[in-house]
């Protein structure tokens, strides 16, 4: 996607005839891409659902394929409809920070997965008597 999609563009009425024609041609070209992406998204949806009915033996394989198709679809939407394949650095910087904090959040959640609240039934297994805290 060209920068025509990322920057505020003057309205065609304010341009010269040649510029307007070039701009129109550029946008018209992108419209074809949008239609192709739309068809790709529909095909991805059909593929995901078809996979469900095929019943693969391996559950991890099923999950991997389903999430892979979802990721490809997400790339199509973000890349073309949201114009991320040719955006300004500012937006990439925002997304980089988002990815960093998202990864951090997921890491903290995974890290804390086995940390269960003291004093609950999940503390070192069910129905375990907790030692008396004599400091209190």
């Amino acid at each position, binding site marked *: 996607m060209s920068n025509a999609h990322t920057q505020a563009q003057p309205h065609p009425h304010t341009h010269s005839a040649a510029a307007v024609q070039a701009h129109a041609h550029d946008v018209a070209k992108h419209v074809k891409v949008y239609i192709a992406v739309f068809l790709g998204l529909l095909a991805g*949806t059909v593929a995901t659902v078809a996979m469900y009915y095929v019943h693969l033996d391996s559950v991890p394989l099923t999950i991997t394929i389903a999430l892979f198709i979802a990721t490809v679809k997400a790339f199509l939407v973000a890349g073309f*409809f949201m114009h991320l394949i040719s955006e300004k650095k500012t937006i990439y910087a925002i997304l980089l920070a*988002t990815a960093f904090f998202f990864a951090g959040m997921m890491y903290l959640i995974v890290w804390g997965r086995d940390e269960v609240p003291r004093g609950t039934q999940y503390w070192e297994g069910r129905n375990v008597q907790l030692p008396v805290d004599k400091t209190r």
Partner: protein
Amino acid sequence: MEIPYTVKARPDTGLFNAKVGIWLFLASEVMLFGGLFSSYIFLRVAADDSAWPHGLLNIPIGTFNTAVLITSSVTVVLAWASLKLGNFKKFRMYQSVTILCALGFLGIKSIEYKDKFTHYEIWKTNGERMTGHIEGSPWFWDTETLRQKNMQELTFHPDPKFYFTPKVKHAGGASGEEHGAKHEAVKVPVSQIKRLSAYVPAHSTYFGIYFTLTALHALHVLAGAIVIAALWGPLAKMWRTEPERFTNRIEVSGLFWHFVDLVWIFLFPVLYLL
């Protein structure tokens, strides 16, 4: 006072301000949905296989709704492209389709929700379980409702198939794997009912996270539809006075709409298929 950089790009960012604003907002949305997705993953991973229902959602309806949302996503970007070409009529036509798709999505989701609110599971005192519909299809009944209504027995239309794998002893007159069994009504004495729940968040962890994720997503669809409808209707007069600024507004609302589509792209396989 004039708001700066609504049309022209700001020199340091290279973008008009609203675009930076919407991307910052979308970044916060990624964290919101990301947190909920991580909750889903941990609940799913920690759940025993027999405690995580499968096949309770209607896949053809979910697939259709996915197609509806994808269609709305392409019409949003085509509407914006039409404005870039100076074609306001086409913009209105495409955004009309977008609004119809948004309403269609919410309508279909409502039907799905209604189906869940009138679908029940019974846990009997002898350990048997069954799913199905209560005569008259009432909404939101639970064990307490039976006590309040002072009912002696419940007329229940059991499902031919139970949802657990491996299956739990099913008291509905048909075992788990038997397809095509008759939906004959059975009378269940209330004294034998240990627990009754509709498919609502209180039913199980699965429905808890299902309703949290899909309801939050539906709220986003509703909010996006309201903004798009406002730009289609009363706010569209800006096109006559400030066409570039109006086009930018459409782009920003479109970015939000695509994000809503993106979230659904992951929600659909995770909740309906896996």
